[in-house]
């Protein structure tokens, strides 16, 4: 079974507090299996292990993590590649307007308006290569990458998974590659030893980027914030769905349908 654990981080608030504690909201897909405190920083994810009667695992248990900034671009919006050409489109639009202009005063006004909305003509909008170019808020407003409040548009990044559950061999995490732009091509995943029933802690190290303006430039300083999460491993024994016991029996076939007999 795959447990997906989503961390929603209020990046602006976390940077203001220099603390994640009250600024992370956890959601997973195993509420029906017993996860508690959904939507809160204290969420406990339930991992439902299933064992064969001889004690061997009957199903794999896998954890997947993904972290989002609450004000970041919706993950379903294609970023990077598709947005990469936006500034070109804006520049084309500007050129068309300029070509149709006859008065120098209008040219100045057009350039000023364009600069106001999209930044300098022809400019690469971001010095950080992995940032979305020409970011927009959910309502479509342009957010300048040079603005300090752009920080909220950067997803937090999980840089390590460690702590008691890792040290005791309850979870075995690793970082995996993917061609998925939404996750910048990486995600964390772990298998769980469901023999280790009970409550376990682990720590996610989240990297936030803190923007500071000095002179005309914005500098992005990485900060690593540890965040403690819990899982509760439970285990049940596989039973046969027909007999209710450990072994299969004879299938409970009903007598054939009269209609089916007639069809033969």
């Amino acid at each position, binding site marked *: *079974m*795959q447990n*997906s654990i989503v961390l929603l981080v209020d990046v602006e608030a976390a940077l203001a507090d220099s603390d994640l504690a009250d600024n992370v909201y956890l959601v997973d*897909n*195993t*509420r*029906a*299996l017993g996860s508690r405190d959904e939507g809160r920083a204290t969420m406990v994810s339930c991992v*439902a292990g*299933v064992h064969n009667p001889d004690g061997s695992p*009957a*199903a794999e248990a896998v954890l*997947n993590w993904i972290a989002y900034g609450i004000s970041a671009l919706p993950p379903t919006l294609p970023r990077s590649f598709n947005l990469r050409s936006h500034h070109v489109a804006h520049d084309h639009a500007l050129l068309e307007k300029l070509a149709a202009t006859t008065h120098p005063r209008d040219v100045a006004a057009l350039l000023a308006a364009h600069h106001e909305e999209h930044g300098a003509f022809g400019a690469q909008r971001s010095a950080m290569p992995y940032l979305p170019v020409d970011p927009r808020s959910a309502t479509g407003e342009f957010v300048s990458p040079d603005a300090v409040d752009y920080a909220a548009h950067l997803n937090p990044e999980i840089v390590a998974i460690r702590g008691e559950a890792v040290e005791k061999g309850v979870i075995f995490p690793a970082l995996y590659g993917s061609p998925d732009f939404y996750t910048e091509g990486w995600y964390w995943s772990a298998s769980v030893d469901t023999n280790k029933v009970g409550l376990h802690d682990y720590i996610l190290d989240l990297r936030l980027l803190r923007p500071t303006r000095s002179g005309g430039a914005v500098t992005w300083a990485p900060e690593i914030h540890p965040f403690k999460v819990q899982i509760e491993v439970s285990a*049940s*024994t*596989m*039973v*046969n*769905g*027909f*007999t*209710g016991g450990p072994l*299969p*029996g*004879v*299938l*409970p*076939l*009903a*007598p*054939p*349908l009269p209609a*089916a*007999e007639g069809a*033969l």
Partner: protein
Amino acid sequence: MTPVNIQVFVDVIALLSGASPAQAVHLFDDSSAGSEALGTTGLVSSVLPGQLVRWTVTPLDVQTQVWIRGIAFGAAPPDAPPSAADDPPVWSRRFEGYVPADIFPGAPHPYRLDLCFGAANGPIVAVEGPALRLVPPCADMVAGDGASRLL
């Protein structure tokens, strides 16, 4: 005699978004005795007396949860309780069993597959249409590849 594996693939999100089981559920088997309507909810699996039949369900998107809650044979009314007791959680039920040896071959035995999903008291989707058809013990040899199987 090798077991017959019946694989049920489910597009869970489509099914819970209004698609019919016929659109979003695909059944297959690896019977060597010739089955019918592979890939559909009308799968008729050819099985031999005494053969072990196993059902396995897999979500197409891998990450959503889908389980077999129960399998009911015959013309069971829609609200008939599934075969499994409610005690073991749905994720720890394995659906497999032996084909009776004392049933006359030929007749199809339709069954209803009840699927449930990762939500407490969530919906149950009944998949109607699949059946097991008992074939005589020599049918898989007649089909040609039963005797030549490598394994």
